[in-house]
């Protein structure tokens, strides 16, 4: 299934969601938004390599939540309330008065740091949703032409990264099977040789396909803004005014599913 949305639409949608979450400052709302965003990503994403970035964002968000909460519980000013458990207090020099490491962990303290962690993680996951729904190449095309050439070079460089990772694991496997102890040098030398050969191949291929031979490049697919994009962006904008509307904006894309399913599947 091709993505027919304008590449900016999903970014506007996710920025609006992120702002809404920050403004609403309600962890339950944030979790609900992440859940809905997950459904949207599941339905609208393609099988391209970048579509997996939602999962990476989800993992990153969880890590932030865990680290943020544990640090928040350990370090900071005490909040009085019901004590859950008590940690030994680390003695600190006098000039660091006001900061405390360890000590009583209260229910209030745990909740407040977890609350902040959830909001932060949810904002990051919203951006991950946008990047997994939008092709970076298509996004580049709607950016001003002046940065297009630079961007194309960047895209080529980034598309070499997955190949780089694959080469590393292949060479590592081969060396392991040769019964060698792994060392940086034994992987680096074949890797550099291969990457160099590959970049030369790519440069030769681009050159012989006329890249850079004319100053102006035409575009194969004009990228158009249609009614669906207006609906998604318009409703998203509403969530900036009232946190309650944020759930409406996150589910607006589902309204468009009906049309999407009407496209015959090959």
């Amino acid at each position, binding site marked *: *299934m*091709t993505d027919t949305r304008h590449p900016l639409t999903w970014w506007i949608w996710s920025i609006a969601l992120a702002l809404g979450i920050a403004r609403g400052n309600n962890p339950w709302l944030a979790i609900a938004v992440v859940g809905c965003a997950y459904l949207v990503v599941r339905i609208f994403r*393609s*099988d*391209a*390599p970048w579509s997996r970035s939602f999962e990476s964002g989800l993992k990153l968000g969880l890590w932030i939540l865990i680290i943020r909460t544990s640090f928040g519980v350990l370090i900071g000013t005490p909040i009085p309330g019901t004590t859950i458990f008590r940690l030994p207090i680390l003695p600190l020099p006098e000039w660091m008065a006001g900061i405390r490491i360890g000590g009583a962990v209260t229910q209030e303290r745990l909740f407040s740091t977890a609350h902040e962690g959830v909001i932060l993680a949810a904002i990051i996951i919203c951006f991950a949703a946008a990047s997994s729904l939008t*092709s970076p*190449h298509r996004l580049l095309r709607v950016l001003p032409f002046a940065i297009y050439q630079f961007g194309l070079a960047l895209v*080529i460089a980034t*598309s070499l990264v*997955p190949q780089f990772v694959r080469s590393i694991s*292949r*060479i590592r*496997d*081969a*060396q*392991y*099977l*040769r*019964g*060698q*102890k792994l060392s940086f*040098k*034994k992987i680096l*030398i*074949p890797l550099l*040789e*291969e990457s160099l050969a*590959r970049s030369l*191949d*790519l*440069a*030769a*291929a*681009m*050159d*012989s*396909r*006329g*890249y*850079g*031979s*004319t100053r*102006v*490049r*035409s*575009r*194969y*697919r*004009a990228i158009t803004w249609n009614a669906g994009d207006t609906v998604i962006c318009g409703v998203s904008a509403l969530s900036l005014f009232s946190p309650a509307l944020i759930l409406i904006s996150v589910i607006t894309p589902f309204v468009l599913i009906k049309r999407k399913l009407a496209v015959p599947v*090959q």
Partner: protein
Amino acid sequence: MITFAAVSLIYPNSTKTVLENLSLTIDEGEFVLVIGPTGSGKSSLLRLINGLVPHHTGGILAGDISVDGISTQLVKPGGLAHLIGIVGQNPINGFVTDTVEEELAFGMESLNIAPDVMRKRVEEILDLMSLAPLRDRSLATLSGGEQQRVAIGSALVMHPKVLVLDEPTSALDPIAAEEVLSILHRLVHDLGLTVVVAEHKLERVIQFADRIVHIDGLGNTRVGTPAQIMSDSDIAPPIVHLARALGLEDVGLTVRDMRRMSEQIRGGNYSHTIEEIELASETVIELLDVSLSFASNTVLKDIDLKISAGEVIALMGRNGAGKSSLLKTIVGLYECNTGSVSILGNNPLKISGAKRRETIGFIPQEPSDLLYGQSVLMECEQGDVDNEIKKGSTFELLNELVPGISPHTHPRDLSEGQRLALALSVVLSAKPKVLILDEPTRGLDYQAKSHLVGTLLRYARVLGRTVILATHDVELVAELATRVIFLADGDCVADGKTLDVLLSSPAFAPQVAKVMSPQPWLTVKDVINALEEIQ
């Protein structure tokens, strides 16, 4: 269409002349095949056509090359993009975008062609190359044959007058290769496209060629019709060797011609005493109910195998049938989801270091993955140290496999065949009980291949070791293997003697078998042996 006028080429810092005084005119609609040993300059000749040599690689060029009246000395490769389509050895290395459709359009966008023209041309090419169902697929998920078709398609979409291909079938299984070549054949005949192809596997392409350019590696070239060149060329497909061995007057280039010429020989009555190779009863590798899957994708399904010492096993099947996965499961890179693998009673996942070197030798698809030394000598000395053998024995072994490699050469500067031999000698110096090779013949010429066959046969017969190789090369299998295992979608669909498996499917039958059917002969040697027996 293409004119080479007294062309000589030499690379800087090299004393070897790549081409010397080559004059050649290729007409419109001609299919020209370039042959020669590895490293002889076939790729250089192809890249001269659109000026990648010397504009991109450097080198000193004398004489002039012109395509459709445009001299490549005056115009850069980009300026010829509308005229010449070029497809490299590894198409995936030349891909710029990430989906099939965008890749097809990339070249046209560079030339600033109007969007509506582009749309029409992309649709045409999608139909022509049967790529329509794949139009939105990510290029990384395509099989080898599909990638090759996309690469050819993105060259054709520019409506070039000349198409240049460097080893288009080397990574493909026989059926995918035939598909690609028949598309080229059709383009030559329907559109009058001029095609120049370099290829090692002559048995696949020779019947399509109008003319052959033979490069000998010393700068000398010969140009002629396939029949002329094949009458005395050292590089020849099995079918030509068969004609020579039978003492036929003409060399037949197609199976049909050869069948007509050899009717009498085929018709004789032969006693088929196939020499049985004595196998030790010792089981070396045992796979029980092995299944492997990645995410929701099943790669291997309930594979049961018993492999004895001294067997040479060929693993065949389409691109993506699970050959590499099976090899990686046997060597212990993948852990199977169900079932068990044992090599000489050990779990391959748990062998490491010196014990691994003595048990399993593995040559990956890219032999250079194993190499990290700065010279051939350093690489060999590392082998000696690792295996605690006499200093210099690994280099001696290399000299036996391929004589005449200078010990101070950098491994990267070796030809494909020499690099494979180096990796092989490093692995063999540990005398592993099992030797496993993944696609060893990619980019190898006939000479390097026969060296490889000799080495592996000696290793299996004399030392009684087991050899397993995954390959698409049916001719190699016919020469070498005692047993063939055929995989399809992770299932083992055939497992038996080489003769039985190869003869049962026409697509995977070697040339000699196609000519001599119904006689059960696979190689030229089989035919000669049978004929001698009757006399």
